[in-house]
């Protein structure tokens, strides 16, 4: 009985025009998105290789330890072919330097705003928006449509248990919707292999997990569609309801969560943080200037009644001490500004993490959010990528700065202009160490953490469980509603 219903559903779907339309649109969109993803990944990889080559060349050409600074680029993630996530929104590079805080800048959308206007359509977008809509089109009249057509009465004039009917409907619709999704997915994989995108075993496992999670998301919408068609009498009513629900689930709930979190937990913007830092710097430099003037005035007072010889002798005697004093004051200020910058950065980052956490909790009331977050996490493209990268870059910056200071000390090269006075050779100016390039063979290199399937799966698990719960609830509701459904 169950197989009869399943086969009938499948046949009914396959001969319907919506099946061919779904198959054509899905195939076109998926293959196009993967093709564009492959091209983007290849372009990003070329950019990355060229940029890192230039950085290496610049490092080799640096002749002073004091002027040594590094620039790190984010390693392109081949999962970008399937899931863009936040990849194009966050910066691609950061300067590694003692005087600057780590900050990823130059995002793809920042560099090429045209891509922001027409955002990249990836696999998750197609599933979230297009496929959920198709699921609604396939299921909105699953039960009430049969009642309206009169086939439900004829069906239940037979010895058919209701559970067989609803389960058969569900499986038949599921297969009818999933086939148009799976075939282009297989073709997309062939495309990725043909273009030799370097996906490791962990990446492939992640791709498989993303496909499974996508099927789970589609399953939710199929169960939800059947549920609504089993609680309404007219297919026009269920279609309208499902359309509104689709808009709420796909667009309103995810954004409402973010907006609510922004209101409930405000965080200073980058510009505000920068403003605070600059105001502090301005204030402390002004204070330093006043103190310096005071010191200079005191010294002038001390020398006021001296003769020219005494003044010259006094200056010779105290020059080094004065220079050291001024240098120390300047360094203290730089340290204070740096400390405040770090503090503000940490506070903002913590605040933003809390705000993001709240936004994610609130937006997860939408299965679409749970799906997108799960897929992005599985692809290593979720919103944690930025902070994880910046944390890793901060750790790298610390080791880089230690290395640089050590080298500066060893070489006695602290930057600035060196003036040598010799009775035989006269004055000699030099810009620190300028003879030949630096030996940077021991310089620490930034190693981005490797993509690990177990790691991303563990992070994505809560969203996957949530999606399972949504699907189970929708199916249970459909089942209960149909048990009470008046088939007349």
């Amino acid at each position, binding site marked *: 009985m169950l197989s009869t219903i399943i086969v009938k559903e499948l046949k*009914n779907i396959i*001969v*319907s025009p919506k099946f061919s339309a779904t198959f054509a649109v899905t195939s076109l969109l998926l293959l196009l998105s993967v093709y564009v993803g492959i091209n983007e990944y290849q372009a990003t990889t070329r950019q990355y290789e060229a940029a890192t080559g230039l950085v290496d060349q610049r490092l080799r050409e640096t002749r002073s330890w004091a002027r040594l600074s590094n620039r790190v680029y984010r390693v392109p993630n081949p999962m970008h072919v399937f899931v863009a996530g936040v990849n194009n929104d966050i910066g691609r590079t950061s300067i590694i330097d003692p005087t600057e805080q780590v900050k990823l800048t130059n995002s793809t959308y920042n560099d090429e705003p045209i891509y922001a206007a027409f955002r990249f359509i990836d696999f998750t977008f197609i599933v979230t928006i297009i496929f959920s809509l198709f699921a609604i089109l396939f299921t909105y009249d699953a039960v009430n449509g049969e009642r309206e057509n009169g*086939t439900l*009465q004829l069906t239940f*004039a*037979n*010895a*058919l248990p209701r559970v067989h009917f609803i389960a058969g409907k569900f499986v038949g619709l599921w297969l009818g919707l999933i086939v148009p999704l799976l075939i282009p997915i297989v073709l997309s994989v062939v495309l990725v292999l043909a273009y030799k995108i370097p996906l490791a075993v962990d990446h492939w496992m992640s791709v498989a997990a993303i496909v499974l999670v996508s099927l789970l998301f589609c399953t939710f919408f199929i169960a939800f569609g059947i549920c609504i068609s089993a609680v309404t009498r007219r297919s026009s009513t269920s279609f309208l309801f499902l359309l509104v629900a689709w808009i709420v689930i796909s667009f309103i709930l995810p954004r409402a969560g973010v907006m609510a979190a922004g209101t409930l937990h405000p965080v200073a913007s980058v510009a505000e943080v920068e403003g605070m830092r600059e105001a502090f710097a301005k204030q402390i430099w002004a204070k330093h200037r006043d103190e310096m003037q005071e010191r200079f005035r005191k010294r002038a007072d001390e020398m006021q009644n001296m003769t020219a010889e005494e003044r010259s002798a006094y200056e010779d005697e105290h020059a080094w001490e004065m220079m050291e004093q001024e240098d120390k004051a300047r360094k203290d200020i730089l340290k204070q500004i740096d400390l405040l910058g770090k503090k503000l950065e940490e506070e903002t980052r913590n605040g933003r993490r809390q705000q993001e956490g709240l936004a994610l909790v609130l937006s997860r009331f939408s299965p679409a959010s749970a799906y997108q977050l799960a897929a992005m996490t599985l692809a290593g493209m979720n919103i944690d990528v930025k902070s994880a990268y910046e944390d890793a870059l901060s750790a790298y910056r610390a080791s880089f700065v230690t290395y640089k200071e050590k080298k500066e000390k060893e070489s006695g090269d602290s930057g600035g202009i060196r003036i040598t006075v010799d009775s035989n050779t006269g004055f000699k100016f030099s810009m620190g160490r300028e003879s030949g390039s630096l030996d940077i063979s021991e310089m620490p290199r930034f190693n981005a953490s490797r993509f690990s399937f177990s790691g991303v799966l563990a992070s994505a698990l809560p969203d996957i469980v949530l999606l399972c719960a949504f699907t189970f609830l929708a199916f249970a509701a459909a089942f209960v509603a149909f048990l009470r459904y008046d088939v*007349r």
Partner: protein
Amino acid sequence: MESGQPVFEAIGLTKKYEDETLALDHVSFSVRAGEIFAMLGGNGAGKTTTINLFLNFIEPTEGEARINGIASHKDPLTAKRNVAFVSENVMLYPNFTALQNLDYFSRLGGKTQYSKENYHAVLRRVGLQEEAHTKRLRGFSKGMRQKCGIAIAILKDAPAILLDEPTSGLDPQAGFEFIELLRSLRDDGKSILMSTHDIFRAKEVADVVGIMNRGKLIMQKHAAELAGHDLEELYMKYIAGHIRDAA
């Protein structure tokens, strides 16, 4: 089952809806094998409610609707194995051909042994043109769909057949063919319970005629008792009398 035992049996069948509407009021009758029972009555008389109770689409408030001795609301699946149903407006799957529809509903009826030739044969028997057998139902007329519905009922090979207004909307030729078909099914020993507005056809084919009004079975007569009577006149007399009594 033993010959002469009722196939359809309504025993004090009563249906009161939640809004207190009394749709059926202690209706009792029986239909034996090889017998056609025609329920006559206007809209809201309770004919379709009776059919719905036999098919367990709704549950009785009181009494029982039995098919082959099985109370529909107590053991609906077993009861439904013994009955085939043809609705007023047969609506099958429009994207399927006549053969595909027959195959699906036969399987639902528990008949998996039929071949394509069996389907063609039964469609020929109900009078559907050969070229329509493999056509999608989307373009079928009501008469053609009705023939498919009867073909499905025949293929189920159940001892009981329920027909809800089967001749409504059929042209005279299709109506005549339909009556002929019912006679042949009766000759096969099927027990047929049919609701209809069509007094002429009811008299023509029924072995027993029941008149229903306001949820009550107000008259029940065998064809022999009706001989020499104008059924239409009788119908109007009973309805009028019942209305007077109710007033």
